[in-house]
């Protein structure tokens, strides 16, 4: 049975400023949703608030996984419930190697008393690194420390591949990528896609959607979804520009 991530009439503020103003969206595993919109419209705020970032306050509404609200629980518990945020700007963690970091993450995901099998872990890690064309030397490098933009994004997808979430929110995963890196990252995501994974792709360019084809496209404006459609909506948006949204879609 498919799992669902339900966002219900969500309102999010940073300080006193409301950024997300009543957004609803349901994503089922097996589906890829794209949220498009210009900068400053609340896309990143939406994903960070759902992941549980302490700077964002959810003032009303709810987020549920399989009917169970995740708003009362800590960010790590949300992650263990199957949520994954691929960051637009991943933090650099000096002194913590990628191998140890992902290992700690997987260990945390497991139940009390369960031990990670080190051999199987490295086998899987290397396999996923090969898929994303990440040099194996990176296992001993500190997480994102001194990485290029493309390396950081690939490292995010690597973590996603290892953690096998049910729902992934990918925040501007295409930004800062050259065409080769974009292809590698997209191929990676396409391999992870399937019945067990629901994806929310946040982007303001249609470019990424040539590589990862969405089932649904939503246009976000001023904290709300103002139009939804299939992948043709992305093309229409690309052709007409965000001015079109402003003129046509914002009706009182």
């Amino acid at each position, binding site marked *: 049975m498919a799992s669902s991530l339900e966002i219900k009439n969500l309102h999010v503020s940073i300080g006193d400023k409301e950024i997300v103003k009543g957004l609803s969206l349901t994503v089922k595993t097996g589906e890829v949703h794209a949220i498009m919109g210009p900068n400053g419209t609340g896309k990143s705020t939406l994903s960070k608030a759902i*992941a*549980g*970032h*302490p700077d964002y306050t959810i003032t009303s509404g709810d987020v549920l996984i399989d009917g169970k609200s995740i708003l009362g629980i*800590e*960010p*790590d518990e949300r*992650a*263990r419930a199957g949520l*994954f*945020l691929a*960051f637009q700007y*991943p*933090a*650099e*963690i*000096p*002194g*913590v190697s990628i191998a*140890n*970091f*992902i290992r*700690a*993450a*997987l260990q*945390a*995901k497991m139940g009390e008393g369960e031990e990670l099998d080190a051999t199987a872990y490295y086998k899987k890690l290397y396999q996923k690194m090969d898929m994303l064309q990440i040099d194996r030397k990176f296992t001993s490098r*500190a997480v994102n420390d001194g990485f290029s933009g493309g390396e950081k994004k690939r490292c995010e997808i690597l*973590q996603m591949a290892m*953690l096998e979430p049910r729902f992934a929110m990918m925040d501007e995963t295409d930004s800062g990528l050259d065409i080769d890196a974009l292809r590698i990252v997209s191929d990676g995501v396409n391999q992870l896609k399937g019945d067990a994974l629901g994806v929310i792709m946040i982007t303001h360019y249609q470019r990424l959607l040539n590589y990862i084809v969405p089932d649904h496209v939503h246009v976000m404006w001023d904290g709300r979804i103002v139009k939804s459609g299939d992948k043709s909506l992305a093309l229409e948006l690309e052709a007409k520009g965000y001015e079109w949204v402003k003129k046509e879609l914002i009706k009182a």
Partner: protein
Amino acid sequence: MSTSTNLVTSVGAFSAEAFALALESHKGLPSWWLERKEAAYKQFTSLAYPSATDESWRFSTRSGFKLDGFLATNSPATTAAKDIGLPGKPALTFVNNSLTESNPVDQALTQKGLVVSTLKQALKTHSEVLKAHFMAQDQRLGSAKFAALHTAFINDGAFIYVPKGMELKTPITIVHSASGANTAVFPHTLVITEENAQVSVIDYFVSDSTSAHFCCGANDLYAGHGSKLNYVGLQNWSTLDLCLQMNSTVVKRDARAQSLNLHLGGHQARHESLSQLQAPGAFSEMLALTIASGEREFDQRTLQIHQAPNTKSDLLYKNVLQDKARTIFSGLIVVDQDAQKTDAYQSNRNLMLSDSAEANSLPGLEIQANDVRCTHGATTSRVDPEELFYLQARCIPEAKAHELLVFGFFEEVLNRLEDDELHAALRTIIQSNFN
């Protein structure tokens, strides 16, 4: 200020009578040694205690540096050295200033000239070498009085001499321990690497945790031309102890010295480290990690002196502060007039895990040459909430995430070690001290 008046005059139990007794026990050792001790005792009594205007004691709790109550005579050892969690067996173990145990080093190497012995033994076999190197550098970091006390009262220590071209693969570990209430110890390790020699030496300092001790130690490191000298000082004295450790490192042409000092113990612990780059190509890497907790104080004073062109020094001192702990870092880079093309780096980073802790940082530069590259800086920060969130977003609970970030902070220093086994051992020791 009656307390400070008291301090100026007090020699504690280190009286002329106590000194005479100590000297008596060294009868028969070379006359230069006895003379030097006598001169040192005079110096100790004539030098004033650090005063309020003494820049090299700025921010220090000077009133904590009292000798009163500590014993000048050695009480017998009551505890044996336990497993210290380092690879291999210690070559020499000292308890209360006397050798209690030794494990012979590879005979094939000693036949080729390697010496790992006590200072007392070396005074008989290598008197001239000792005379040239024992406490031979000026005390420029504020503790001349205590250095004199050290020389006057030192009973024994470790002497390591690595002959020309010899490369030792496994580290040599020396254990210095203090036991019994109010014991004063004067640990000393002297290391010399001759041309192109290579060695790693670990000093491990430990004391019983039930009473206070005064630990007044020193080490002399001398890296001859083209040699490589790695030193680790693992300071794990009891948290009740008053500790002072004075380091002097001399680096010659194309030689490389690396020191890592790990400060875990002491109620009040001061560390002074002096590196002198004396010939072209010399490189000194100075590293330190401190875990400051409770109401303890860690005071670190460093001096990097570039005396020749094309020399390099790289200092990285990291402190983690918890509770109401205090740290002081005061570092100075001095570049002499003809030390052109100097490359000097100095960085002090403090990670605050508590709002009540206090980190003081005083970085400094004194440059006489005009073609140099000198960088220094100090940062004080908390655990970055964005980093914490990132780890939590990857399933890791907050407490564990916190721990990973703190260990990551240490790891940046430990990564500088070439010896993976030692790296792992130190990591384990740090983790067990931190939790």
